[in-house]
């Protein structure tokens, strides 16, 4: 047990799923050749003016509502002034003192029980524009950077949490839950590889000493490019800060706030250069945009459009289909489409628990192997449901059903078609009875065992029956054989 608490707050930027940029009509599509998605407005050319994208505002508001935030009646935009080559106007249009939302929370829980369920406070979520990209160019010994403004002006939602997170695992869980929520809302795809979700973290320690608890200086950690990187960087940083504290005893407020970057290859954080004056952003109200005033009716309309959010969905699955918290978590984390699929399988099969197993084990395995989404999965929920129903009714062994499903996945056939193609034909009771009588006649030793109450011996008969006709239902064979033996004189 370490003698400190880790105190973590996150600043998350997500790109909103609009077609066009926040203040102009340029496309937000990712991956276009450099500087092919710009116009006078997003290049910041003299004389140009911004006009707010309604969709961007509404997406931001939906996210804020889903994060349980308060939405003030009036919100406005401000300019954040700083110089950087990927910021063509020399200021970023952002929100300062009247953000579109404040004081919300997001609940996180861990089905594996690493931490207790908790509410993570959201201090604010506000809308701002993204900057372009700087790329360092070492070609031909040139120490130049190249600037691509395709991303400049893409709408971003900045979400700032309270310093409520107490471990790297909690931070990771928060990010996963946030991503899931924003995916469900279709607010953002939160793809860290494409930069549509970016995270900075503020970290310090509360060290417990015999003299009381001591807060160490806050460090801002940047450049974390995956959830895993966030978890590792924070773990590294906590340990590093503890060592620094042991060595120097420096407390919060005794040194200026430091910014450190995460180096993925060295698995370490390193100090980033920053000048004191660079933090004077000289915010002031953006005179080129007008404020937005929201009526309670508009907020109610947007709230109604949110749909069922992950937390509520998990609860519903657990209650309606009697599945475990772990199962509901796995299913809901896969996204709304997979949950819909599961629900259809559960309804068609009449068994939620069994449906959950099949979807989690058999369906997800194929999705992972093939790197496809549930929409591209070749077996319909109804077809899988019908198959699971047969298993549930004992008509098919699980292992046999797996073979059938594999065939269905390969060919796109229905369960019946696949069974037929695999030579499966239902064996009627008359035929089965005949087969059992033959087997009993041919195996007096087993019959003797059974008569003596050694019921395990029936397995031998089942095995022989399957050999003679693979289509027999083993359970029925067992049942019939025991019946026949019981009626023997």
């Amino acid at each position, binding site marked *: 047990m370490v003698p400190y608490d880790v105190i973590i707050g996150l600043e998350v930027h997500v790109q909103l799923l609009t077609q066009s940029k926040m203040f102009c009509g340029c496309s937000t599509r990712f991956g276009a050749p450099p500087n092919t998605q710009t116009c006078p407005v997003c290049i910041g050319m003299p004389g140009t003016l911004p006009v707010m*994208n309604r969709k961007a505002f509404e997406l931001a508001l939906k996210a804020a509502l889903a994060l349980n935030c308060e939405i003030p009646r009036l919100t406005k935009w401000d300019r954040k002034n700083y110089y950087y080559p990927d910021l063509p106007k020399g200021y970023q249009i952002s929100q300062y003192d009247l953000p579109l939302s404040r004081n919300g929370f997001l609940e996180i829980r861990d089905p594996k029980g690493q931490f207790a369920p908790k509410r993570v406070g959201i201090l604010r979520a506000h809308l701002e524009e993204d900057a372009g990209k700087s790329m360092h160019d070492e070609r031909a010994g040139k*120490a130049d950077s190249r600037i691509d403004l395709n991303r400049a002006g893409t709408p971003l939602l900045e979400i700032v949490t309270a310093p409520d997170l107490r471990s790297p695992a909690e931070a990771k869980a928060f990010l996963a839950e946030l991503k899931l929520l924003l995916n469900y809302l279709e607010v953002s795809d939160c793809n860290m590889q494409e930069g549509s979700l970016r995270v900075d973290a503020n970290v310090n320690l509360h060290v417990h000493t015999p003299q009381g608890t001591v807060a160490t200086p806050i460090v801002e950690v940047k450049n974390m490019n995956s959830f895993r990187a966030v978890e590792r960087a924070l773990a590294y940083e906590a340990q590093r800060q503890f060592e620094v504290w042991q060595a120097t005893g420096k407390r919060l407020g005794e040194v200026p706030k430091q910014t450190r970057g995460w180096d993925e290859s060295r698995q370490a954080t390193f100090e980033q250069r920053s000048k004191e004056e660079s933090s004077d952003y000289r915010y002031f109200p953006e005179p080129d945009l007008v404020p937005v005033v929201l009526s309670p009716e508009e907020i109610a309309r947007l709230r109604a459009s949110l749909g069922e959010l992950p937390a509520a969905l998990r609860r519903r699955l657990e209650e309606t289909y009697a599945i475990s918290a772990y199962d509901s978590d796995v299913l809901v984390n896969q996204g709304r489409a997979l949950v819909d699929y599961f629900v259809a399988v559960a309804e068609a099969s009449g068994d939620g628990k069994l449906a959950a197993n099949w979807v989690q084990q058999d369906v997800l395995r194929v999705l992972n192997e093939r790197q496809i989404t549930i929409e591209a999965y070749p077996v319909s929920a109804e077809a899988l449901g019908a198959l699971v129903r047969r298993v549930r009714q004992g008509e098919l062994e699980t292992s046999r059903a797996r073979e059938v499903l594999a065939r269905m996945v390969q060919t796109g056939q229905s369960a019946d078609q696949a069974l037929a193609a695999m030579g499966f034909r239902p064996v009627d009771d008359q035929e089965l009875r005949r087969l059992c009588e033959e087997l009993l006649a041919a195996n007096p030793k087993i019959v003797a065992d059974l008569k003596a109450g050694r019921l395990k011996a029936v397995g031998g008969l089942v095995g022989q029956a399957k050999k003679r006709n693979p289509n027999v239902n083993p359970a029925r064979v067992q049942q019939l054989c025991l019946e026949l033996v019981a009626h023997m004189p």
Partner: protein
Amino acid sequence: MAISRAEVEKVALLARLLLSEAELEQMTVQLGAILQYMDLLAEVNTEHVEPMAHPLEITNVFRGDEVCESLAREAALANAPHRDEECYRVPAVLGET
């Protein structure tokens, strides 16, 4: 309020201006005089006055989320003082925040 030469230097960096010795000298005197004049405002009682950042009282101006044609890259880069075939170019920005 007078302004010191050190403050003028600090503001010049913030504003990304580079002033010569003579300019710094002159700027300190001129800004000092102007700011001294601004102190006139101190006598106005603004205790219960809401700041007015803008003359208009309109709200909620939006555009639809529609994609329009972007500039051809050549047109976008045409005014750039230093560029290559794809990008604007600047001295290395590595490691600066």
